[in-house]
């Protein structure tokens, strides 16, 4: 589903190279975890996949279902089935969460040539998904993410993910800022979305999240490259020994 080949990317503004030849293949139905120390390029990778124009691709390619994803705008990528759960969900004053959800869902449907959702159908979907994630109607009436706690923001991200039904979910440090209960709710929400037609890339610092969202493959990213790939036990090993071995290996 996702093929990243020798991807090099730098910050457009100051030309600092962040990704230095990332290779990664994720098949439908798989969950991959990407771990790595601060500054290794994890978040950059997620932004590059989503199409943020703060970064410049200097080499390599990204194929999404065989299509060159780097040629697509962020909204085209989203409509094609790419979803990034942000590490820091953005607050948008003046845009009611409900209105935002409807606009996003219908924009994607329009781009795919599908009919617009009827209001009752939309409401039914939102209520059902919100119920699972413990998102209240009150939250949905508020402006998007404004005044939401850290946990509420992350739950709102997963709610969006559930409603938009993407093929590829990239979760950028979805565990940061969550207490144990919130972590469980969010993880349950993510696990519900696991399926044979969907792939996930879970970016995290800590092994903790991977107790809840058990990955098929674990990668270690260091200094802009994947330096080690293993199964879920690799995460446990990292938790015990830290990243020191791999940071040195990449140097």
């Amino acid at each position, binding site marked *: 589903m996702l093929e990243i080949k020798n991807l090099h990317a730098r910050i457009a503004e100051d030309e600092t190279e962040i990704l230095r030849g990332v290779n990664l293949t994720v098949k439908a139905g798989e969950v991959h975890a990407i771990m790595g120390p601060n500054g290794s390029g994890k978040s950059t990778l997620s932004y590059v996949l989503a199409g*943020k124009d703060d970064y410049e691709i200097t080499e390599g390619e990204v194929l999404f279902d065989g299509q060159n994803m780097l040629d697509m705008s962020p*909204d085209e990528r989203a409509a094609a089935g790419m979803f990034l759960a942000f590490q820091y969900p953005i607050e*948008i004053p003046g845009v009611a969460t409900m209105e935002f959800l409807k606009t996003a869902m219908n924009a994607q449907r329009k781009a795919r040539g599908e009919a617009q959702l009827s209001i009752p159908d939309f409401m039914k979907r939102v209520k059902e998904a919100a119920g699972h994630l413990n998102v209240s109607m009150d939250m949905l009436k508020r402006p998007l993410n404004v005044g939401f706690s850290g946990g509420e923001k992350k739950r709102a991200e997963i709610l969006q993910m559930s409603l938009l039904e993407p093929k590829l979910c990239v979760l950028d440090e979805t565990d940061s800022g969550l207490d144990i209960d919130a972590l469980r709710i969010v993880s349950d929400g993510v696990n519900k979305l696991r399926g044979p037609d969907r792939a996930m890339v879970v970016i995290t610092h800590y092994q903790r999240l991977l107790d809840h969202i058990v990955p098929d493959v674990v990668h270690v990213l260091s200094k802009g490259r994947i330096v080690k790939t293993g199964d879920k036990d690799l995460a446990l090993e990292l938790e015990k020994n830290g990243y020191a071995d791999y940071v040195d290996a990449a140097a």
Partner: protein
Amino acid sequence: MNASVPIKHTQAESDLIDRFEAAKGVLTGSVAVTALREAAVSQIRDKGLPHRRVEEYKYTDLRAFMKSAAPLAAAADESAVKTVLGSQDAFEGLERFRIVVANGTFVPGLSDIEALAGEGVIVTSLTDELACAHGAQLLASPKSAANDGILALNTAFVQGGVVVTVKEGAEISRPVELVHVAASAGAQVSRSKISVAKGAKLRLLETFVGETGDGESNTVFDYDVADTASLVATRLIVGQSDAARLFTSIATVGAQAEFKSLGFIAGPRFIRNQQFINFAGENSNAGIYGVTMARDEDLADQTLIVDHAVAHCNSREFFKTVLDGRAKGVYQGRINVAQHAQKTDGEMMTQALLLSEDAEMANKPELEIFADDVICAHGATSGQIDEDLLFYLRARGIPEDEARTLLVLAFLAEAIEEYGEDDVTEGLEARVRDWLAGH
């Protein structure tokens, strides 16, 4: 200081002086009213139109903008008024009472006079009242606007308007729309006095439809909010027009009263909306809101002076401006707190969103405080669309144009929502969308 050196008149100033002579037969009123008109036209003759070297008009040079002055619009034909009224309705579906002023004068035949009388609202013609002994009082200027050039222009040429009186304790079941119709081209100059007696409540909609051609429009609203009364006034000025559009509000707010207003502007080439608000009684609240959109070469000016002349009053001023193209936005807001106006709470904020490199915003919030126990704050921001917000929306599948529209709407909606008049919110947001769509 008296201007001793005669100024060289611009074409527009000469036109205005000629217009005054030509319209003497039409511009009626008591002896005192005529004297006020003469004094006002003398001011124009001596000082000219307000220009950039007059502090209050530094950013809004009316003298430079007005190339000429068209004659006053002739009395409107009722069927023409009906046609214009039928062509535009910003608040479609909203139940309301209507008062019609066309080509500067009251049209009783198209106004809901009887229904309003039943609710405790008396409506009379300003033209008639100006002929009465008390007529001159209806043209009084507030201290903070003494010698104001736009007000002088209005006094000199005021054709008519309405005098609306809401009886003590009356709560009007629906909003009252004071609709100003330009049924034919020409300058339109009107003034209306709105008095809300003790304990009464009025929600007013001020709308403007039709084209004045190359004639300026100059509209004054003089509000008198008595003790314990409430007045909410929504002013909606939309649509393109080439001539200057000039608006003045004067408000006197009694004790334990409420005054709230929104000045909504989208589209005119040159507009100034100026407000002079005076707290005359304690424990009152005023909320003054502004939503402004301008593009191309438009100039849009929201100017405001709030006089906290007495203690224990709160005022909130919240203005939002969106500018595109080479448009220029102006916000001048001043809160004056008199020495004995202790426990005043004033909070003023002006925020501008610039959609292009060439758009320009002049934000000038000011506080002048002579009391020592007050809470007053002011702030001003100018910025562009936040790229992170835009990216977030696009990452959810919303195309760039739609995402920008959503963010502009969200920016302006903050003021509309805080204004909090639910029955007009939908109509106002629809007008924002119209503007964004280029109308």
